[in-house]
């Protein structure tokens, strides 16, 4: 099964935003192989959360680790049956380790959609 995490420009840290993250890291839970994919939503005028969610859903992902998520993307993931978990820090490895130990909690920080204009 695959796990997805939004990552920032460094490609090594967790990104604060999911919808506008520049990349997603897709981790094969069985082989631990990591792949980086571009987030097509970064250029989106609106509906970034949905476009981002679509690109992740298309990767056969079974779980998402993220610090937060917009309502639209969350709705899309829910419809796809993909659970969201709260990352513990900026470190990808720390969150992955916690996930594997079953220590991560379900994501609480689901913010109202800013109509695709999110990002701090």
């Amino acid at each position, binding site marked *: 099964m695959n796990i997805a995490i939004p990552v920032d420009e460094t490609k090594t840290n967790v990104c604060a935003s999911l919808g506008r993250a520049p990349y997603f890291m897709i981790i094969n839970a069985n082989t631990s192989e990591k792949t980086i994919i571009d987030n097509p939503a970064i250029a989106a*005028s609106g509906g970034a959360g949905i476009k981002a969610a679509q690109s992740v859903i298309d990767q056969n992902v079974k779980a998402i680790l993220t610090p937060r998520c917009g309502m639209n993307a969350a709705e899309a993931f829910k419809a796809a049956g993909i659970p969201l978990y709260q990352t513990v820090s900026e470190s990808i490895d720390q969150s992955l380790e916690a996930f594997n130990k079953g220590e991560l909690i379900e994501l609480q920080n689901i913010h109202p959609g*800013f109509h*695709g*204009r999110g990002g701090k």
Partner: protein
Amino acid sequence: MKQLLIISGKGGTGKTTVAAAFIELAKAEAYADCDVDAPNLHLVLQQRTPPHSDDYYGLPKAQINTALCSHCGICMENCRFEAISYQDNYQVDPYLCEGCALCQNTCPSGAITMEPSAAGKLKLYVDNKTVFSTAKLNMGSGNSGKLVSEVKNRLKTNVSTQPLTIIDGSPGIGCPVIASMSGVDLALIVTEPSVSGISDLKRLLATARQFGVTTAVCVNKSDINQKLSKEIIDYCQQNDISFVGNIPFDQAAVTAVNMGKSIIAFDGAAAQAIKTIYQRTINLLFNTK
């Protein structure tokens, strides 16, 4: 890093005057003007270096290649935005085109393409450690939300260790205001004691609530109508909204703006009141969980 947004609902209440004053009081090193439709903040902040300018592109707009057009009229028939008209040739009005691409998809002759469309200009003033991000939306343009997000994103180039970012917002409750609210720790609403001001304040508060944004309120030109000023304070108390102060009407505000300066440069009643409001706002920002 805390982000403070200054908005108003009704226009002309004094957002930019307050924002400029706060920037000076905080000695802020990262600030932005998100009123991309009518940016004014740069007029009262003395920028020493010219800005870097970049074009901002919105959704691509349809363009008809008359050489390939077979004059079937299908594009005009289907366009929901009345953006296509016929006068010797079929043409697209870029002000009306919303970029849905239906015409491109239904054209039997392949005569329609979606072309990049500059919808505004982004400006970034960088001066030593200070970063000031602003933009101007082109006339008649829509979808200003993404431009606002871009203006805020550019503040990330800020390397300052200063814990406060100040955003001067826009009037209204639509697109640019909603976009400016994203990721904000506190939205300070500058209102005025008038029936219009109060009506607009309530709609803005409803909008902020919808997006889960914490708000605080101050009343500018408070002495023009004492009864209504009190009504605003009472409303805030009844609805658990932080009220941070009154600013009396002060002609110095106009003088300051016309000299391209912040009102803090003039030591009058308004300047004093703004300093007090600034302190209370900072306390709210840094002392709440």
